[in-house]
């Protein structure tokens, strides 16, 4: 059986990639994908520990996370569509209206 630490290491790698994606990429779609990546790395940790301890709590929590992620994507994509309509672009650096 593959040790839990492997899953955790993979999860850390996935999360780091997600963070880097959010911080470094400009395309809003990519940003969303990066966020999904981070959520899924968290899911991986839940599931890994669930398997190790033989408890189902982590698995249930993963369902919740997936549900929230789906809802978030729905809202997020709607926002992106609206932004694209007004700006003809989905580059997040173009929507810097909160600049002080």
């Amino acid at each position: 059986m593959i040790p839990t630490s492997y899953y955790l290491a993979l999860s850390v790698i996935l999360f780091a990639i997600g963070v880097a994606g959010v911080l470094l990429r400009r395309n809003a779609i990519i940003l969303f994908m990066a966020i999904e990546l981070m959520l899924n790395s968290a899911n991986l940790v839940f599931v890994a520990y669930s398997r190790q301890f033989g408890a189902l709590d982590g698995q249930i929590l993963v369902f919740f996370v997936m549900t929230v992620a789906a809802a978030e994507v729905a809202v997020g994509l709607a926002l992106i569509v609206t932004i694209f309509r007004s700006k003809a672009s989905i580059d997040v650096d173009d929507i810097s209206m909160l600049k002080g």
Partner: protein
Amino acid sequence: MFELVPFILLFPVLGLLTNLVFGRYLGERFVGIIASGAVAASFIVSVIQVFALVNNNFHVETVLVADWITIGKMYLPWQIRVDTLSVTMMVLVTGVGTLIHIYAVGYMHGDKRFARFFVYLNLFVVMMLVLVAADNYLMLFVGWEGVGICSYLLIGFWYDKGDDNLGNARAGRKAFVVNRIGDFGFLIAMFMIFGAVGSLQFDAVLYYFENHGMEVGQLATTITLLLLVGAAGKSAQIPLFVWLPDAMAGPTPVSALIHAATMVTAGIYMMVRSAPIYAIAPSSQMTVALLGAGTALMAGTIALAQWDIKRVLAYSTISQLGFMVAAVGLGAHVAAMFHLITHAFFKALLFLSAGSVIHGVEHGAHKSDDHCDPQDMRNMGGLKDKMKITFGVYVVGAIALAGIFPLSGFWSKDEILADAWHVGMVEGHWHGMTVYILLALAAVITAFYMTRQIILVFFGSSRSAAANHAAENPPTMTVPLIGLAILSIVGGGINLPWSHTLGSWLEHTHHFFHGIDFNLTVALTSTALAVASIFVGFIVYYRRPLESSTAPDPLMSVLGPSLKFFYNKWYIDELYGTTFVRLYEWKARFLAFKVDRDFWHDFVHNQIILKSFKNVSGTLSGPVDRLGINKFFDGLAYSVHNIAVKVLRPVQTGYVRNYALGVMLGVVMVLGIMLIR
């Protein structure tokens, strides 16, 4: 029956309140009925008090109306004292007052302030009754001041008339100020009495002085002399008599009621009331006697030379008050009260008749369009046939005043002279004789100037068109005159020398009030002198009547400059004018312009206070506030702004990743802290 006594005060109060509130709607007739009726009701109650006293064996009775001042051991109630002395005054004030009220209804007919006049008149009666009904010195003082203010109000009643349209108002002011000087003496006396006795109730005070006798003689002398100052102010004696002639500016009923019959007798009443204090202060008694006699003579000489019909009577009043004061000083309290009563009758009569004359001449002035001074006797003459009733009562008054047997003035004046004679010859005091001589001279002069007045007014031919058209007045005016004339004739009956009715009546108030026995020598001498004086008067004025209203007095050729001296009232007004008044005005001006304006306002206020205030506030607002506090807060605001612009603003880039980086660093930090701890 004593419990009725508050009604004596209550009736006029109700009368004045009614007239005060409804007077202007009621019309002259009702106002007159209410005012006269109120005083008449008081008169009836006063007469009831006489019977109550008789029933009570003449024993004094006090009626508590209300508590007034209670401080520690001092207790001063509103309490009415019913004894023979106060009841005598009550009957006199309300009786004469009623007649004068009725007369005033006719006299004031058509005046635009008719109702107000009767409000004042009733108020005066109330105050005078408070004065005589008082059971302590302070309540007496309330009445004393009350009649003073009424006198002021009534002298200035026609305030828009007189010299410069201000003369009457000035006369009122003069009366008020001069009376204040007297009141000052009275107040100090009252304080000293309270200091010594610890009470102002008559019983306590008089008991104290009666029983401590000569050991408090020094104190009694001071107190009595101060009381004399008060009496001199109110009863118009030297040196404070100057206000009374000016008080003739008031309507004639006022002159009759206040300045002849009642108010001016307040000083006499007060001194008679304080008799036990005077009794142990012989030196002030002597002062009082000499002052009174001196006033009697001096005022008589002034009356001799006056042309104004009312001024003659005013000086005559001062002179007669001098008789009364002299009598008080001689210890002849009964004689003083007797003369006070008879004088009230015939002087009220004379004033009201003079008012009738003036009214008649004014009437003539309207008819003939000759607007001369209706009070100047030079413009009169020959009124005997035109005003028959007035002439008759005037002669009665004049004869009574001159002291001719058997009218009231004879009995009362003679009793004073007999007292003076007694003190001088029997007891052998030099001042008694001096007083006798002064008073006898004054009596001679009195007879002379009354003769002069009668002849100038009523005999000869009319010296002006106004006098030529004069006419008799309506019955509201003549009926009270006839009533007073009867009283003037028979008034002496209250104290005939062989019955001493008034003497034994007053004896119940103070045991040493005694009448004096009839002195034939004195009586014959004074009658002879009076008759001779009248005869001389006839020779001077009747045989050669005044030619015109500008002719000089026939006495001028005999007396010359001294008549001018008398005419100008011994230059007393001028003397006071140059000394007291000028000094006072100078002082007032000094205080107003130098002390107040130049020093206080310009220097202290403007220079010191205002300028230093300006300096201080200038410093506060300039350097301290504007440069200090304001700069500091400006700087504070500016630096906040600076920090915001230079530091906080660039942080807000608007780039999502920057915020995300911030969130991540925050999470890392939190996690780091959690790991380390």
